[in-house]
């Protein structure tokens, strides 16, 4: 077997608390399918037959009942971990180390992309790389996010990614938070790769191909807890460290145990270095190919540990971990899905105006004289007459009474919007009720705000 797929679906969605308060992030509907369905669909389309899903018990329960998840034909091996949030992605990988028999492809549950996966995996295969990852040029989110007044200047930390001239080899990776004084690059890197392109506007898709040796390395190094935050920068740095480049290690397994007695650092480095067998070495020597020109060293500068990145410049690649990304993803979901936009079981009256970008879920009821444009409407939702819904995301089981005007909102499951309500850029939490004739602009409701809704200063009743 070549690759094993691992889906990380235990994340909390800490950056969108209003949405994830009731529904765990992996099960949030995007295009009327649970969020984790999208990476699973990607894996299924490419040809995987089994996926190990690391998730929480709550999500597992929801998965088993959700009809959309039944569409997934692959065999899902669900591993539950505690929900306390202390387990990082690397910890989760360590947890399933016994199941990992070969190289592993780690995907995050919030990745929605149409990348040609073979581009990433080909880098991994062709160069015998230790790590191959996917990144994408970031797109600005154009939709206004409900609940945000004015443009939010993101104080988010940028990622600095350094690639070589071909744009494939990953030379440098650091987050702004870790760079206090400035960006310092080791001389050994500059000597080997005198031309480096440093990019900041990239989105890490959290899709990684890792060699099996890395998983074994994690098992020994319990201090690493996050793949993105700790493991990746470590691997990228290790490409150029002296020890990996002088392997006197044609060791057998016996020597390894000796080394562990000496010091754990030695053995771990040995574990990571992809020990090229002598025949491969011979083939490389006899081959007239070199990955770089201009200096006297052989291909890959003799380095055994190599990290590669595939940077997408066209196509969709979103990580749905903020509200803005969630809205954007829903907007584009209709492009990704091959199913018809309107579910066959939905009852839509003839005098309803529906735009082509909208998605209507199963068993919906849409009455006359409604207008639905650029919106996603979830399953079992009732939309009464004379309702205008634009640019919104309506989740499952919502009831929208007559005459409402909903623009740019996110309405979570089982909410009830009273008659004649006028909502602009609002986020209505699970099971909330908006009073009839209520008017709200840029407002967030959730259970916490419930009380304030009934006597809020911004919501006006009637006219």
């Amino acid at each position, binding site marked *: *077997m*070549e*690759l*094993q797929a691992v889906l990380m679906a235990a994340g909390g969605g800490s950056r969108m608390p209003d949405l994830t308060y009731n529904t765990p992030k992996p099960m949030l509907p995007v295009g009327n399918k649970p969020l984790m369905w999208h990476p699973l669909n990607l894996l299924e389309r*490419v*040809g*995987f*037959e089994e996926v190990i899903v690391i998730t929480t018990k709550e999500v597992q329960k929801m998965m088993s009942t959700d009809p959309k998840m039944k569409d997934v034909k692959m065999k899902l091996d669900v591993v539950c971990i505690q929900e306390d949030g202390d387990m990082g992605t690397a910890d989760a990988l360590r947890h399933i180390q016994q199941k990992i028999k070969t190289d592993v492809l780690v995907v995050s549950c919030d990745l929605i992309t149409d990348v*040609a*996966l*073979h581009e990433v*995996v*080909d880098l991994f*295969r*062709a*160069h*015998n790389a230790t790590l191959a990852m996917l990144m994408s040029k970031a797109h600005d989110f154009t939709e206004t996010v409900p609940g945000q007044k004015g443009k939010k200047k993101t104080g988010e930390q940028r990622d600095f990614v350094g690639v070589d001239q071909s744009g494939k080899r990953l030379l440098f990776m650091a987050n702004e938070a870790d760079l206090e004084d400035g960006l310092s690059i080791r001389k050994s890197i500059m000597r080997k790769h005198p031309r480096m392109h440093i990019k900041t506007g990239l989105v890490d898709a959290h899709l990684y191909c890792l060699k099996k040796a890395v998983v074994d390395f994690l098992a020994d190094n319990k201090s690493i807890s996050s793949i993105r935050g700790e493991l990746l920068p470590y691997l990228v740095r290790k490409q150029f460290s002296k020890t990996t480049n002088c392997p006197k290690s044609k060791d057998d397994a016996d020597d390894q145990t000796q080394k562990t007695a000496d010091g754990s650092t030695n053995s771990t480095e040995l574990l990571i270095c992809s020990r090229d*067998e002598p*025949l*491969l070495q*011979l*083939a*490389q*020597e*006899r*081959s*007239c*190919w*070199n990955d770089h*020109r201009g200096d*006297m060293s052989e291909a890959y500068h003799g380095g055994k540990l190599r990290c590669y990145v595939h940077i997408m410049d066209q196509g969709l690649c979103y990580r749905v971990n903020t509200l803005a990304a969630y809205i954007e993803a829903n907007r584009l979901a209709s492009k990704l899905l091959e199913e018809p936009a309107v579910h066959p079981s939905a009852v839509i009256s003839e005098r309803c105006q529906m735009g082509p970008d909208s998605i209507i879920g199963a068993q919906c009821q849409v009455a006359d004289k409604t207008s639905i444009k650029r919106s996603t409407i979830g399953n079992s939702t009732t939309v009464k007459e004379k309702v205008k819904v634009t640019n919104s995301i309506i989740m499952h089981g919502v009831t929208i009474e007559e005459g409402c005007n909903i623009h740019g909102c996110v309405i979570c499951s089982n909410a009830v919007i009273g008659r004649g309500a006028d909502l602009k850029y609002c986020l209505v939490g699970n099971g909330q009720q908006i009073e009839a004739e209520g008017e709200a602009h840029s407002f967030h409701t959730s259970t916490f705000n419930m009380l304030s809704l009934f006597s809020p200063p911004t919501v006006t009743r009637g006219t």
Partner: protein
Amino acid sequence: TRDGLCNTDDIERSKTEGKELTKEEKQRLRKEKKQQKKNKEKNDEKTSHEGEKKKNKKKKEEQPAGSASQPPAQPSPKAVPAPAPPPPAAAAVPVPASEAPAPADKPAKSKADLKAERRARQEAERASKGKKGDVGQPAPTGKLKAPPSELQPVVKRLPEHVQVDNPEVVKKLAKKLERQQIPLRSDYGYKVSLFSHLHQYSRKAPLTQQLGIPSTVIHPAIVRLGLQYSQGIVAGSNARSVALLHAFQQVIRDYTTPPNEELSRDLVNKLKPYISFLNQCRPLSASMGNAIKYIKKEISNIPSQCKEEEAKIKLLNCIERYINEKIVLAAKAIAKYSIEKISDGDVILVYGCSSLVNHILCEAFEKKRKFRVIVVDSRPRLEGREALRRLVQKGISCTYVLISAVSYILPEVSKVFLGAHALLANGYVMSRVGTSQIALVAKAFNVPVLVCCETYKFCERVQTDSFVSNELDDPDDLIVTRKGKTQLEHWQKVPSLGLLNLVYDVTPPDFVDLVITDLGMIPCTSVPVVLRVKNVDQ
């Protein structure tokens, strides 16, 4: 003698097991049978081995489960699509006919009703193919050495990789690949008309686009190898052969015999789709073809009572030994011979990057010979830069020129050392495109040309020109950007423009003064002798 097996033992074993016989044995048997049986037997033979032929065609990829009398398709060179040619099938049929086991007779008997029908069809087919085969025969397959019987005309089959402009052949290839579950790689771009009979692929459209991830049909080591071939990461005939054998080692390690199958037959059948896949990624080289032939022979020679573990270890050792003998030790031997030819004060010209020539020069330098090297390079590959790097790293003083300057620099040169991709049976040297030019100019200047080549690259093909059988590389490689301008960027839109990126060319033996092989220093015309000696050994 072959590795540890005697001729007589082998024939007897094959007779009892109904296994495939080598060409010599089949010829011998055939001659005997023909002398014994005349007219009546000839008819029988013809119809039953027509049945054989049909069956072999159908059962090409399937395991001949249980029927020990049916030999699988033979270890033919990869270029030849292999419906089993009549003579070996004829030999195989009388052999099982003489045996007791019923299965041998059953196939012949059960086909008895359809014999006449099939015979008629066969005759018609053969008549049409005979015509086609007679018209153009630039590259007869070396395999068909067997003399044709008086009954059927010799059908010389062109290898399918030089018949790309023939839609039937392409269809047949597509069907074969479909059967093996390997995606078909489509040709790219406009092909220059003289070379429109060859495949031309684009590097930007790798075969892995159409494969699933993770690859289940094809072993991951083979997928990796195919990628490395198509992207040029493993280039050079020695490197390709070593990498191929390494991948086969991994395949063998991961192989388990399915129940009711024999390792010796099943493993060979497992390797076939892999070889097709590699062929799609990049056409196989002659050295790879010979390595594959060797491996298949070794696998088929595994005795059936051998346990799987033992068999696997034996095969892995065979591979190691092959690489050691044919590549590593051969390089040492060639270096030893060549050093005698390098004297102090020599100015040696090399072309492109040949691993063997580089090895020789480095060895000579270590043995304290004083010489300098002129590296000639050519676009688009510019492999000479890599050769330059390796030589300069050792400390050899080098000059670097492009091939357009070769006639200017030749007056300084005292010897020319060339590497070879393959040595053909008529003494022609097949090597990187440009080599024949270098040899020609060197001949004009009376500079001795020495070709260094291991014996495992000797191939039974015969070629006199570089048109019939060659390899077309990605035409986009010729596009270069200078000062921000890419002139050829839209070459496909110009209808009368074609980009040609040839990979190989053949050098006639008159331009080559000496061939240095691990068997010694031989003239170019002695190549067929070496081949014959090799075949007798095997």
